[in-house]
């Protein structure tokens, strides 16, 4: 089970009324440069992007679930309302909002995309296509790994590959969640990196929050 089948009950249970779309082929990356989640793009009434993809988590819904509380605190940092306040400011003030960028600023603030990044996207698409057609073969691993090497900072490419491999090889829930080698099976892990190593490299502030406090 994957994609929409996993997502649908979550969305229905939460009673979400906004459109919720499924992006199986990472169109948000190809079209906008979304290379991790959560990331948001703001588009104004005329179809102009006023903020390119950026991390940002809306104010959390109060919850008693400790895992959800941890996830929210990791994502929102010290001021849970900060990002929602920016959105509210833009909604109220439009183009004159501090947070609304002009066209040149939007382009300049979008992700760098050298040719290697385009090649990484092509390799990732081949990996995805073949994985869905033939399962997680050595060739699929090869295409995923080539995408990871070409654009190591693209966390969605890695997360997808880690989960896809774990799903077939070690289907227990925690193995998929961990997105890294499981204890006792370290030798099986086929990737040069894993989720915790990626966090330490590309999101050190979040990795720091995950460390046990003395």
């Amino acid at each position, binding site marked *: 089970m994957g994609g929409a089948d996993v997502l649908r009950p979550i969305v229905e249970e939460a009673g979400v009324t906004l459109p919720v779309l499924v992006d199986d082929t990472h*169109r948000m990356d190809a079209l906008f440069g979304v290379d991790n989640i959560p990331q948001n793009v703001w588009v104004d009434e005329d179809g102009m992007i006023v903020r390119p993809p950026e991390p940002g988590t809306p104010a959390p819904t109060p919850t008693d679930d400790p895992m959800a509380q941890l996830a929210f605190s990791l994502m929102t940092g010290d001021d849970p309302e900060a990002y929602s306040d920016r959105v509210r400011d833009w909604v109220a003030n439009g183009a004159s909002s501090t947070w609304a960028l002009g066209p040149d600023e939007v382009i300049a603030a979008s992700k760098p995309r050298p040719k290697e990044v385009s090649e990484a996207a092509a390799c990732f698409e081949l990996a995805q296509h073949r994985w869905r057609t033939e399962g997680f073969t050595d060739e699929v691993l090869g295409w995923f790994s080539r995408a990871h090497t070409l654009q190591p900072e693209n966390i969605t490419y890695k997360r997808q590959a880690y989960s896809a491999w774990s799903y077939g090889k070690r289907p227990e829930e925690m193995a998929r969640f961990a997105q890294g080698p499981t204890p006792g099976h370290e030798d099986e892990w086929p990737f040069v990196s894993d989720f915790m190593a990626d966090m330490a490299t590309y999101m050190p502030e979040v990795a720091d929050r995950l460390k046990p406090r003395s």
Partner: protein
Amino acid sequence: MITDRLDLTPAEFAAETGWELKPEGACKGDVCVPLGGAPFDAATAADRLGMAVVHDEQAGLWAIGPETVGGRALSSAEAPELVLPDVRTGEPLRLSSLRGRKVVIASWAPY
């Protein structure tokens, strides 16, 4: 985009990449890249737009990566057309159908 052949029509190329063939060249938003005037050829267009073309010989497939015009993910601030299915209905939603309203596209994943 994934394809098993490179002799794409301009319409097929545009549907997947968002770059439409016009008299000025390949255009997306307010940006046009000249293609040199010869009959349309996907490999040439991809090269002019800085798109990587990767061949999977074993599977008989080509993958064409996104453009690298200007060296940034966004070559224009005009939002590209995004068409994705709604999880509940399966119906495709077009970003352009939301003109006249502010939109925040939030990318997320369940765990």
